[in-house]
């Protein structure tokens, strides 16, 4: 745990320059008063929790203040931390042993970080002794295949790719067949970015999902939505639409090393029950970390350098 914490710290410090663990007091006053609640609202909304979630949290805290007779903002801050942490499920451990190959589909809107995440995951899994294959099923965006290929070469991971504009489902199919015959442990399928409102593209994604199931019954064993942490309220719509289309099983929050706090994770957890699995804390393979809700909540509560 301590080790994990320090990695988060590093990731955040690089750009955020915030002092981890020593969180400046959030509130101007030391006694709780009406301004305190306004300040709290401002903090949570600005961390992209959304006004609805923010109001729920404030209600919960107001209750605690009465019940526990809290008077100091410092006490409130601790209560806030507890409430926020309790709203996120502990990160489940992923079981890699029951399927071979285990097929993981990465989905998300344009530019969210899918390809980079595929590479990062591949690197991390291979470090634990698993064999990994990357499937470049983004045949649409210019040079998307090359992008994953470069990562594969750098990290020594095999990549199965189709021709530009080839059927992405066919690429996924080939990759899985190849993984079966090569006795690979894990297949990571990188898909093209698509806005969740685009009917045809969501249909295409469903097809990839179906075809993966044909290549290997039971697959995909996991569908992970890569969500850019700088996203605002739209994140919930994205998560809903992708979940409906391809049964997303978990969220990866990318670009948490930016100045954004990723507060939409709360609404997504709350209304869709989707756990946050990993956090992207930089562009390098080692910058992907197992999601840590304590560190994440600290990131929301700490004062920004700006």
């Amino acid at each position, binding site marked *: 745990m301590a080790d994990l914490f320090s990695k988060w710290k590093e990731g955040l410090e*690089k*750009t*955020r*320059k915030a002092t981890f663990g020593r969180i400046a007091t959030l509130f101007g006053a030391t006694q709780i008063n009406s301004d305190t609640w306004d300040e709290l609202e*401002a903090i949570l*909304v*600005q*961390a*992209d929790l*959304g*006004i609805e979630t923010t109001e729920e949290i404030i209600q919960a805290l107001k209750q605690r203040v009465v019940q526990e007779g809290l008077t100091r903002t410092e006490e409130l801050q601790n209560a806030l931390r507890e409430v926020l942490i309790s709203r996120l499920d502990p990160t489940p451990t992923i079981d890699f042993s029951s399927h071979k190959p285990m097929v993981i589909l990465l989905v998300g*809107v*344009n*530019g*969210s*970080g899918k390809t980079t995440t595929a590479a990062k995951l591949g690197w991390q899994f291979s470090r634990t002794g698993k064999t990994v294959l990357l499937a470049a099923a983004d045949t*649409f*965006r*210019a*040079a*998307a295949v*090359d*992008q994953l*290929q*470069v*990562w594969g070469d*750098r990290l020594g991971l095999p990549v199965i790719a189709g021709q530009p504009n080839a059927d992405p489902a066919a690429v996924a199919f080939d990759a899985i067949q190849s993984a079966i015959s090569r006795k690979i442990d894990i297949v990571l399928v990188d898909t093209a970015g698509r*806005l*969740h*409102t*685009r*009917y*045809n593209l969501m249909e295409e994604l469903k097809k990839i999902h179906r075809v993966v199931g044909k290549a290997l019954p039971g697959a995909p064993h996991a569908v992970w939505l890569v969500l*850019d942490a*700088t*996203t*605002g*309220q*739209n*994140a*919930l*719509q*994205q998560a809903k639409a992708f979940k409906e289309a391809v049964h997303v099983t978990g969220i990866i929050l990318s*670009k948490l*090393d*930016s*100045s*954004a*706090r990723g*507060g*939409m994770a709360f609404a997504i957890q709350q209304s869709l029950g989707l756990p946050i699995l990993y956090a992207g804390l930089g*562009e390098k393979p080692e910058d992907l970390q197992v999601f840590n809700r304590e560190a994440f909540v600290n990131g929301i509560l700490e004062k*920004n*350098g*700006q």
Partner: protein
Amino acid sequence: MFETLTQRLEQIFTNLRRRGKLTEQDVDAVMREVRLALLEADVHYSVVKDFVSRVRERAVGAEVSQALNPAQQVIKIVHEELIKTLGEPQWLNLTGPKPRALMLVGLQGSGKTTAAAKLARLLRSQGERVLLVAADPYRPAAVKQLQTLGEKVGVPVFYEEKVPPPLLCAKAFDHAQKGGYSVMIMDTAGRSQLDDALMSELKAITEKVPVADILLVVDSMIGQEALHVAQGFRQAVNLTGLIMTKMDGDSRGGAAISIRSVTGVPIKFLGTGEGIDALEVYDPSRLASRILGMGDVIGLIEKAQQAYDEKTAREQAEKMMSGRFTLEDFANQLRQVKKLGPLAQILEMLPGQLGQAAKMVDPKDAERQLKMTEAIINSMTREERLNPDILNASRRRRIARGSGTDVQDVNRLIKQFREAQKLFKTLQKTGGRGMPNLFG
């Protein structure tokens, strides 16, 4: 998921219909809703605060006009203020010594490379001689991405391996000058505004190249941080414009307001798709409606007004009120809808929930359905259209044959028509005034 602002305000004002002036309490109630709408649109917390107090001042005591109910009146003020804040679209700074150097900057994945290609295509089609510069040596295959796009739009891409971006851009400028290019577009790597090393790199480029336009490319789905991102970039370089991308989704795009009102940087373009032709000059009114979650209500009303002659509109409204709406009117409406333009375009303009639902409709499918509906109605006699109750089984069979459809299709249409009739009645009760009934 979200109720539209209009709906919420209609609720607040159901009891206030007959008042002349807006009282402070009325305005308070409305401003609470406006505030929520703006926060849900990702407008920055502090910007919302200022905005709301500005509108508040204007709204208290404002005369309620005859034509609008109080809710519509306040919306109009909010809408006007938003438009004012968003400002007129501005064109690129293309006049002056050639080549004009444009630079695209922004966070990772915001859409810079795509926007570079889109701009190249646009300017080329206007007769400029354009050179693209691949100044992102960091992201794997970023250069290849730009080269591929450059080939697609027929614009050469300048690149030299292992040359740091500032020097690369200086060399590109030299090349552009000697080669007689009129515009040079630099695609830079994505970066966080807090990354000092990479921000200095941007500054270094501007010191080596006389940059005419520095455009910040922002993903329209971005949340509250948009403000700090824009401020951070503006501190490092002299931003001259904003491009909001991925506007083809259902994000409300409130970041545009935050950025514009705090930095004063004008909005220049919108990215509306992955294709290299999906670049639009933005329209302040449409964007304001979108941020308010009203769809393009204004645009829709205007379009409808153009297509609808007023007499028919009034007659039909009256008919609906009295529940005397017939399939004949339905047919009339269908013709009006068709005059509005391609269905796909109309679906896109729908507000709120309706708009979200419409996005999941396959436009081709909808177009087919519309054709089918028309065929069925055309196969009815006038008497049948005026009095659908007489449509017995044998008449329905005849109509199906005549329109080349199945009896089930005819049944479905009649059922839909009944439901529409019911809907109009409830709409009438809840006061859906002002909106022409487009969707019979």
